[in-house]
């Protein structure tokens, strides 16, 4: 499914934002909110995983049904997961397209990576002492 990715803050992201390694943070920001009809169209239930692929990359997320979402739009809270697929293009304004990244949404059996795994995939070294 082709969709437009929207990102932003929400409460659970805000609560866990200073605990980037915590399960609560991962649970808050590795979620893909989408319209239930879109979920149905993909043939999956809420809680199953999808891969989102954009011009910048791809990432696996857990789906969550949200009536408030328009069809053809998905919302991923601000964080390393959303940023794994947001392009760094800023249109020379300094600001990436955090609210307008076109993505492909495909169901997947792959598991959601941890924040540290994501950071390692871009050259980081985890610190988990």
């Amino acid at each position: 499914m082709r969709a437009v990715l929207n990102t932003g803050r929400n409460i659970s992201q805000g609560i866990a934002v200073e605990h980037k390694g915590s399960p609560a943070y991962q649970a808050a920001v590795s979620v893909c909110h989408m319209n239930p009809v879109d979920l149905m169209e993909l043939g999956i239930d809420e809680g199953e995983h999808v891969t989102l692929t954009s011009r910048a990359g791809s990432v696996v997320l857990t789906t969550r049904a949200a009536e408030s979402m328009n069809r053809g739009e998905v919302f991923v809270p601000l964080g390393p997961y959303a940023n794994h697929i947001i392009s760094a293009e800023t249109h020379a304004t300094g600001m990436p397209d955090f609210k307008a990244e076109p993505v492909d949404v495909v169901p997947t059996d792959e598991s959601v990576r941890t924040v540290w795994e994501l950071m390692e995939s871009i050259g980081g070294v985890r610190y988990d002492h």
Partner: protein
Amino acid sequence: MRVILETKERKKPFLPIEAETIIPSNFLKGPELTVYEGNKERLLSDLFTIVVEGTAVSPDKVEVVLKGDTARIKRVGEYMATGTIRIQGDIGMHCGNFMSGGVIEIGGNADAWLGREMLGGSIICHGNAGHYCASGYRGEKHGMRGGRVEVMGNAGDFCSEYLTGGEVHIHGNCGDMAGVEMKGGQLIIEGDATRPCGNMKDGMCMIFGTVHRILPTFEKIDTKKLPDRNVTVTVYKGDVANRGKGTLMIQKPHNEGDQHPANTLPGPATT
């Protein structure tokens, strides 16, 4: 006189070079100029192999040729008043800023802010131009005021923002919001455009490709045949959200079934 500058290999090739000293008139006194690489001042000869052919008595007879990896070289031709600069490949940001005369020819792509606040002279870019082609400076109320910019390929977003005078001719497509805040001059787009001329106050924009999402505040006033092109265009006045007296002529207005603009954007020239 011809001055040929060919880039040398650099340890940190991604560091931007700021080279507003590269304008024809500066070479009359010899090639001992300096440029900035990051926060370090360097001799031109540290970064370029310099070959000077012939002599000149006045700057208009000086031609500067740039070769090699020139995509990160910024501000070439800034404040240039006369003479010629030819760039074989791509060129970095702010090429031809504030230029008032002379010619810049770019063989490849130009990065953002090509011909920013230009006053006169002409720029020809054979590849694509980045965002803010022929536009203004942050906070400044006047963009390009005179001269001519011609881009054979596409231009990015905010092309000709605040255009106040002169002519901009894009042969390919423009990104989002070409001609936004336009208050004079002429913008011609042969290809497609999205949301052109928002908040336009004056000036004229003609678009011959498909126009996505014409703003609701442009008033359709006429259709008109352009004899030199043998096409009929729809004429709009706008932007009535403002005190707009601008003219927008579109050959192919198209508002239905639009794609999202993010999907239709040309990439920036040097991505």
